[in-house]
């Protein structure tokens, strides 16, 4: 599958982006801990957040090793500023109501599921191993989000209204993952990752299936927000990073 070599810096940056997205989304879900609508959802959400945190840790650790510059998963997570974090914009969208949380999950998982599936064949065997584990977790996250989407979409007038609203708000963030830049092109050419072009149809189909089962219309607009992968974020990320990094930055190098 590998055809050209990819320089380690670009390779590391690609893996780091995956870790960043998982970290930011995990942090968002972590904000919901203690305020779930029911005890059952509280646990479900916490489990998902922890899974994503685990994925982030593995990915950032791997990225740090690839870069070989002495970074660690912790230093990457706690010591970088917004401009250096290259997570997808979708991940940093605020939680909003339950419909928002579910729709964001549906859109993210529709991308992550085929991503992990493709990465099983990565020329980077460590990344393939991470994908093997993440795939099973994401399969469950997708089931959870899609089942909820179905019940909310095909539920009461209020649930439907909220889901449709969430979908309108979040849809413009659903395409960034498939907008290839130099990094994406380089790792695809080196057989490290699937190209965005091959990933998009699978993800879009999963999204369409989920929306259709929920009796929702697939939004038509094509214009997509982007910039997260290049470190250009919305204001919300800054506030989130403040909370995420405050402890580590106040006590550098602390352990317990």
């Amino acid at each position, binding site marked *: 599958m590998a055809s050209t070599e990819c320089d380690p810096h670009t390779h590391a940056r690609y893996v780091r982006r995956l870790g960043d997205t998982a970290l930011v989304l995990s942090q968002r879900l972590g904000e919901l801990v203690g305020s779930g609508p029911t*005890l*059952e959802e509280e*646990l479900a959400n916490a*489990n998902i957040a922890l899974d994503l945190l685990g994925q982030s840790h593995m990915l950032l650790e791997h990225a740090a090793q690839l870069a070989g510059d002495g970074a660690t998963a912790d230093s990457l997570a706690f010591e970088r500023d917004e401009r250096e974090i290259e997570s997808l914009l979708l991940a940093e969208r605020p939680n909003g109501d339950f419909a928002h949380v579910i729709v964001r999950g549906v859109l993210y998982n529709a991308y992550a599921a085929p991503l992990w599936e493709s990465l099983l064949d990565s020329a980077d065997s460590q990344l393939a191993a991470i994908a093997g584990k993440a795939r099973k977790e994401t399969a*469950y996250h997708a089931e959870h989000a899609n089942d909820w989407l179905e*019940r909310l979409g095909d539920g*009461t007038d209020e649930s439907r209204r909220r889901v449709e609203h969430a979908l309108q708000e979040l849809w413009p963030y659903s395409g960034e993952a498939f907008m290839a830049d130099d990094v994406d092109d380089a790792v695809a050419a080196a057989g490290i990752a699937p190209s965005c072009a091959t990933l998009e149809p699978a993800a879009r189909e999963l999204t369409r299936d989920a929306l259709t089962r929920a009796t929702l219309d697939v939004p038509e607009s094509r214009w997509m927000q982007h910039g997260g992968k290049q470190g250009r974020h919305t204001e919300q990320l800054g506030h989130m990073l403040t909370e995420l990094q405050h402890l580590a930055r106040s006590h550098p190098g602390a352990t317990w």
Partner: protein
Amino acid sequence: MSEEQPWPLWEVFVQPRRGISHVHAGSVHAVDATMAVHNARDLYTRRGEGSSIWVVPTEHITASSPDDRDALFEPALDKAYRHPTFYEVPDGVDGM
């Protein structure tokens, strides 16, 4: 303002390994059976406790009454001939 209904209650049974009986683990609230299995997975199998989950609506469980405990269970206590204690279980027979 829509009328609020509490979610139905389900009893959860978890099977630790294939071949072993499902054991009652607790209960969950869920909107329907599919979500009940999800919720049971999230609440009761976080630590690798199981390989299979059963959920049953609580209303479908019929329980014996504590008042009948004596009549139902005491007569069995002094009938040693019902116990298989006089057999030797051969080596290598698992799960007995």
